[in-house]
């Protein structure tokens, strides 16, 4: 099976500091790929390179097997790559529908087509089996952390995206809300999307992911099936870059 998203040989430097060394990474449709690594391992940089926020120094990005050039966030969005950022890009003073369509409002003439937007937002939330919000005309300021994360993810799904990258979606959430969001992450993959989940939390990673990619100091230590590794092995990969015969060979 060709991975939906694949990157090969990515190098990225910020001035004299090389952050990514020859990184290879892939994500398959219908799977959750966890991207793990310690602080400063290069997870966010890799994601921002894929999302077109940082230009890459060398290497190639393949989408659906074909090489593509991503020069900006709009290119990524056009391909169907959506990134849900950790610091939730939602406006508190707008309601759920308004947030989901922000920047891409549906209009009829110069007027906003509120009814169509509301219908479509409702359809998307229903399709994701989101039952936790009372009304989709609620202001985002009145939502809980988990509900906000849900809206942010649903916003990414609304645009027919094929790859959804989630940057630490459960970092600020409680136990029940984390479970809610992880369930949603799983459902996204079951719908056939390629989901990339950046997480620090091993429990989350093992709960939802199909494959795990571990970064160590800017190098890809290993990309393995979740079923083939143990908790301890992943922790070793994160902290030392190798575990038994897995990992970076010196």
């Amino acid at each position, binding site marked *: 099976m060709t991975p939906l998203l694949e990157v090969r040989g990515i190098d990225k430097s910020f001035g004299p500091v090389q952050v990514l060394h020859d990184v290879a990474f892939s994500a398959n449709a219908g799977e959750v790929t966890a991207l793990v690594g310690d602080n400063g391992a290069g997870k966010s940089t890799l994601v921002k390179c894929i999302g077109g926020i940082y230009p890459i120094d060398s290497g190639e990005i393949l989408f659906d097997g074909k090489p593509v050039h991503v020069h900006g966030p709009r290119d990524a969005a056009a391909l169907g790559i959506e990134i849900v950022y950790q610091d939730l890009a939602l406006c508190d*003073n707008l309601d759920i529908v308004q947030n989901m369509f922000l920047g891409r409002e549906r209009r009829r003439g110069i007027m906003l087509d509120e009814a169509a937007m509301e219908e479509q937002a*409702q359809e998307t939330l229903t399709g994701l089996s989101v*039952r936790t919000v009372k009304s*989709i005309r609620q202001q985002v300021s009145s939502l809980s952390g988990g509900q906000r994360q849900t809206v942010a993810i649903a916003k990414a799904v609304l645009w027919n995206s094929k790859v959804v990258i989630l940057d630490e979606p459960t970092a600020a959430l409680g136990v029940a809300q984390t479970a809610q969001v992880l369930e949603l992450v799983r459902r996204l993959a079951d719908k056939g999307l390629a989901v990339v989940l950046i997480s620090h939390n091993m429990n989350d990673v093992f709960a939802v992911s199909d494959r795990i990619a571990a970064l160590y100091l800017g190098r890809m230590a290993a990309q393995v099936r979740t079923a083939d590794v143990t908790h301890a092995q992943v922790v070793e990969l994160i902290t030392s870059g190798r575990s038994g015969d897995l990992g970076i060979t010196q």
Partner: protein
Amino acid sequence: MNKVKELPGDAIAAAKTSPSIGLSVRAYAERVRGGDMGALPAVLGLIVLCTVFAVARPAFLTAINFANLFTQGAAITVIAMGLVFVLLVGEIDLSAGFASGVCAAVLAVTLTSLGLPWYVCVLAAIVTGVVIGVTLGGLVAKVGIPSFVVTLAAFLAFQGLVLVLVREGTNISIRDDVIVAIATRNLPPWLGWALFAVCVAVYAGIQLLRARKRTTRGLVADPMSLIAARVGALVVIGGLAVYVLNLERSRNPLLTSLTGVPIVVPIILALLVLWTFVLHRTAFGRHIYAVGGNPEAARRAGIPVDRIKVAAFVICSSMAAVGGIIAASRASSVDPNTGGSSVLLYAVGAAVIGGTSLFGGKGRVLDAILGGAVVAVIENGMGLMGYGASVKYLVTGSVLLLAAGVDAIARKRASAAGLR
């Protein structure tokens, strides 16, 4: 688009049925308790102030005084309507008062010295406002100077500009009939009633049409009882206002008759409709709220934050120009003090008292009118009570501080209630 249909969400399906009026009221009460008070303080303040002044000075309730309130408050209200846009994107414009002065001076000079027809002069004044807005907005959004500093500098500079335009302090009197009519003449009584009827019909029509369209599409619509209550309120308040304004208010009816709705009222209503439409029914308005609510989120959503901010300043300054024209019309002249002294603070006060947040992202154009009414009532009532400028300034200053305090406390409560 994702047309996936499975597992209909129970909660969402349940919410589809129209909420009863009781539910709407309860939701509103909940919002108020959570700190989102909207226009409530302004409305309550207006009721309290009117009661106090009416008891203390019966003259406050006369038809002539009621009409005065509109012409007194018009210029400040219009400037405040423009300020709402700048406040919504989280900036401030301290120069709006003198910007209105500059535009009024441009009007006066083109009208008298150059002798151009009135519409050309009005256009020149508004274009001046647009140029001012582009300059201020560009300095704030593109160069990145804090709006407080840019507009404070402009506040000083425009004072000088007005002096230059009116040649170091002469008073230019305006004799053009059309310009003078704006703030001093009235509509014939029948036209007032006709206008009232059209407003009610259009408002009711829009509400009913929207509710019907939403119901047929299976979306949550406002219940009929709520729509009836809204239209009813408009009929009672509007009808009462037109009735009182159509009463004879001349001191000597045999010599001159003075009746009808002041011409500024339909002008303000038209501006209210225009800007409310822009804010709530267009993508541009949505983006203004987004930029004020979370500029970073707006940027990531692909909204040109800089351009939206410049546009907000352009709207503010061109509305200041309209305010300046109204002020010039009321005084029938322009002097170095037009748009000066307390005009700006009253306008900012009007916007904030009406419920527009100084922190950005929250406010409506209607707020400016409610707040403008509060400011006009204070000014007018204090004058009737025989208090001098000192007391007026003190009271208005306190009210502005109170409104800003309510805004800040509401924000705090909202964050405590998990609403922000």
